[in-house]
């Protein structure tokens, strides 16, 4: 008896979310630290309301990028070799494993974005403009960071360089997402079309998704 791709994806998502619920790494460590990071900025730059309103969206996206990558890299690199071997011998398609880990990381990223977003709105008086487009942006960034982190985690798992590689791999790839997210908000604020920025982010997501799926098997075999 064999099992389908999406059935395996669902098993991996369920497994990862159960693990996170019991470990609480994201919910009880990363999210509070992300919120604290946003709280610390006014201490450094002062509490001028106009300045905070001006830098608020940018600070929000920087925090989402930095902590978001930690969320998904942590999820992807948390499997030991015996656990990976056991899954491989159950017949887990590496691409299904990649997609499953990415989906569970996306869900956690969305929770992170919403919680930190509430802090940003409350603390920096950031306006919520163009709600449907903002939701699209949040979703693309969540998927993008989850993909980047999962791919990086897979690379880290398969090489002896360990986590030292993470910043080198993630920093250049996350720049288009950061740029797209900040410029989208700015475009919404000024009433401009943000379609080109959304398409840029979507293109990055698509490219990383294709790379992730295609390299899932070779990375597992390394």
């Amino acid at each position, binding site marked *: *008896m064999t099992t389908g791709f999406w059935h395996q994806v669902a*098993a991996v998502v369920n*497994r990862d979310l*159960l693990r996170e619920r019991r470990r609480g790494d994201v919910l009880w460590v990363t999210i509070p630290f992300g919120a604290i990071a946003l709280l610390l900025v006014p201490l450094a730059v002062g509490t001028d309301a106009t300045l905070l309103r001006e830098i608020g969206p940018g600070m929000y996206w920087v925090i989402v990028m930095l902590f978001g990558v930690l969320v998904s890299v942590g999820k992807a690199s948390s499997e*030991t070799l*015996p*656990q990976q*071997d*056991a899954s491989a011998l159950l017949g887990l398609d590496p691409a299904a494993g990649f997609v499953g880990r990415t989906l569970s990381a996306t869900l956690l990223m969305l929770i992170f974005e919403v919680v930190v977003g509430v802090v940003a709105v409350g603390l920096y008086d950031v306006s919520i403009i163009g709600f449907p487009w903002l939701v699209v942006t949040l979703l693309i960034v969540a998927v993008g960071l989850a993909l980047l982190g999962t791919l990086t985690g897979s690379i880290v798992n398969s090489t002896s360089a360990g986590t030292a590689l993470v910043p080198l791999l993630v920093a250049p790839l996350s720049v288009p997402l950061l740029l797209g997210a900040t410029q989208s908000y700015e475009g919404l604020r000024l009433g401009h079309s943000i379609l080109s920025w959304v398409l840029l982010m979507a293109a990055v997501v698509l490219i990383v998704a294709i790379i992730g799926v295609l390299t899932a*098997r070779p990375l597992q075999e390394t």
Partner: protein
Amino acid sequence: MIEGPLVELDGIGVRIGSTQILRDVDLEIGAGEVVGLFGANGAGKTTALRLIATLIRPAQGSGRVLGADLTSPERYDVRRRIGMIGHTPGIFPELTLGENLRYAARVAGVPADRANEALAAVGLAGAVDRLAGASSHGMQRRTEFARELMIDRSLLLLDEPHSALDRDAVDLVEGLIARKAEEGGAVVVVSHDRDRINKIAHRSVELSGGTLS
């Protein structure tokens, strides 16, 4: 049904990084055989098991496991028929014993209700909801044996299978090994306990410095 040996290694060498772990390994294991694999620490026993499990590719030589070439993509198709219990448990400590087996069942395409039956078969019926991380090493190993019972495997690779097990569990494991051989499968058992393995194995081989003798 596979014609010929279930495991066939011919002049196999394995390198991990710049280190040659296995060299010129020749081994044949036929259906119904139980083979003991001995060797000192660092002799390459675990690498040999992972090689037979198709989880690492040989750098030299050629080999077939369950009819699949070790260097071709066809090896992915036979993985589900290979069970391996390593020295370190391959289950997730944050999941309960039942959740671990249900995850395995869902990935392997086995009905999930077999998970509880398999746990009951290894004496863990009352521990289905117990977190794996809060269970003893022996219970974790029993859970892994339950996983192997649940899935139809043709080849079992066991690394120190008696470690951390009580008398009942040892009997269970030895029963599983004997049954697998009777069913026409094959079992490779790595152990330092030669006397115990010699009682259940049809023959033994020794790894020394990465070479089989």
